[in-house]
């Protein structure tokens, strides 16, 4: 049992999260994919905490989680606001910044 396994798992999760961000059109699912990517990162933190016997990494995870919670709160509020004007949360419909 080496840390490599955890790293590999984390990378796979991260990649899946990234694919989710890239291919899904539903803004809420994109958010969920983002959370997945956070999760992958957290896993690495925790694995290294065990590996180096350092509690600090676990605390980083704690902070990441709080920030993620805040981000989700604001992000979902944004979703609601956008949905009110556009009646859709399809990100492909949101191209007001087109050059």
């Amino acid at each position, binding site marked *: 049992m080496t840390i490599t396994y955890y790293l590999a798992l984390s990378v796979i999760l991260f990649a899946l999260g*990234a694919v989710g*961000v*890239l*291919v899904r*059109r539903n803004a809420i699912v*994109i958010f969920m994919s983002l959370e997945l990517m956070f999760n992958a990162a957290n896993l690495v933190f925790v694995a290294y905490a065990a590996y180096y016997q350092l509690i600090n990494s676990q605390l980083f995870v704690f902070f990441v989680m709080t920030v993620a919670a805040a981000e989700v709160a604001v992000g979902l509020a944004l979703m609601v606001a956008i949905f009110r004007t556009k009646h859709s949360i399809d*990100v*492909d419909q*949101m*191209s*007001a*910044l*087109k*050059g």
Partner: protein
Amino acid sequence: MSDTQLAWVVWAVLLPLGGIVVNLVVGRRLGEKGIGAVASLAAGGSFVLSGLLALALLQHPEGGIYRLATWFNLGSLTVDWSFRVDTLSVTMMLVVSGVGTLIHIYSIGYMHADVRHNGDPQRFRRFFIYLNLFVAAMLLLVSANNFLVLFVGWEGVGLCSYLLIGFWFEKGEGGLGNARAAKKAFIVNRVGDFGLLIAIFLMIGAFGTLDFDGVFAQAAQAAPALLVAITLFMLLGVTGKSAQLPLFVWLPDAMAGPTPVSALIHAATMVTAGVYLVARSQALFLPVPQAQAAVTWVGGLTALFAATIALGQYDIKKVLAYSTISQLGFMVAAVGMGAAVAGIFHLVTHAFFKALLFLAAGSVILGLEHGHEHAGEGHDPFDPQDMRQMGGLRKRMPLTFAVYLVGALALAGVAPLAGFFSKDEILVAASERFPVVFGLLLAAAFLTAFYMGRQLILVFFGEPRSKAAHHAGESRPLVTMPLVVLAVFSALGGALNLPGLHSLEHWLEHSLVGVKEGHFVWAVALGSLAVALLGLGLAWLVYGRRAPTEQDALARPLGPLYRAFERKWWVDEFYRLVLLRPLGWLAQVLAGPVDLGLINSLGDGLGQGSQLSANWLRKLQNGLVRSYALVVMVGVVAMFAYLLWVR
């Protein structure tokens, strides 16, 4: 000479400028008489000062230099506002201010009538301002002590010539004729000035100074090739200002100016500036015979060429204009062959009799205009300068006729009038060094006598050929008085340098280099007199015995040759075809296809290029957040790959 005396030369130049200032400031309140008086007094004052200088020179013939101020001083080159008082410059100053003053006085009367005839009395003041400016510039030209100050006068007189030719700028052919003539004069003169400028540049490079003394002192040691270049470029300047081949074309058109202008600028003084320049620069010409030959040939050819054209003209002033060109040819030839004294002598006498002829012609024109109005045909188109409309004026304008006769005979070279002696000296010099040019000049002298005879007969003899001529009357004393003075000088001017006495020669040898003792050759003198009389006689035979017809009496016998005289050898047409048209076309091409097309597209292409690339780039900014995320991801992958590869 003391500095105080030398300073007079500056005052002589400044006085006419003072006249300008007075007329500019208070001229409006002075009235015509006042304006004319101020201007004439200014010019007259210059004449008095020149006379005083001449008297001073009698005691100190070596003259002197008066340095007023530094004009500019750059690197090794210093150019001063400095003036040269010597016998040559003072002679020229006397001629310029003397003839100038007479013409100022004459103009008071002439312009009084002219501005009314042309319907703008306000312009009276402007005329005298220009005239004073001219006198100042011409005096500066002849009294300059270096080539650049000379050049100031040189272009200054050209400017005045421009302004005065275009004095009636709304008149002439198509309303623009006079303005065009003025522009032509200035531009053709600029071509000549180009030559003089290049000569000046060469002198700066070769001698490091533009002062006459400095340049002439080094001329003897200079490389002949350099001197040839300098003198030939100078010759270009001379052909421009003194209306020689090939740049003479502006002078006939310059007759668009009021007649006093033709007399002062385009006959007596300005056009002789080229002659003065060559005489002044003898030291540069003497070491290089090739350049001398070039000048002489230009003069000789011009003398004959212009004389032929004079045969075919009907305009009283045009005849005199071509005669001026021809006589200038005599002078240029003279100074070219080293007979500078003869050239200056002819310059002086020519100033007298040609000014006289022009002013008398002006008197004739005034008489005809007067007669035209008197005849009650005030509004009909009428050319008061057309000799075909004249005839029989001998009885109606007796005084004018008398002085005109004196002038014409002097010009024709009939002894003992002034022209005989001066022309004779040139012919003698030519016969010794340039036999072919001697032939040209002799032929020109014959034609001179002939066309002057023709003019006298057409204008004064026979019966009046128009109502205007019928009603013509003698001009006012203010106009005729200067004529009489000039007639006296024209008659007696030969006394300046009588054979055996050579007073002018001894006077000038203080300032001219290479003066050779002139001598009198009886054969040449008698020959030229015979030629003159022959010309006059032949003119009588051709024109005097029967009433002139619409077609000139020579037209039939000479055929196409006469047509060439009449059409001025098509020189203007030639220039238009070979130079003006292609240059105008070139300008159009440059302004159109080249500038707006080619060069402009450089800038517009820059703009369009950035617009195109922006159009292409903005497609990347598609507004889809997932595309941006994809790009971020690709970047992450690429960076990761780079890190893998590097480590």
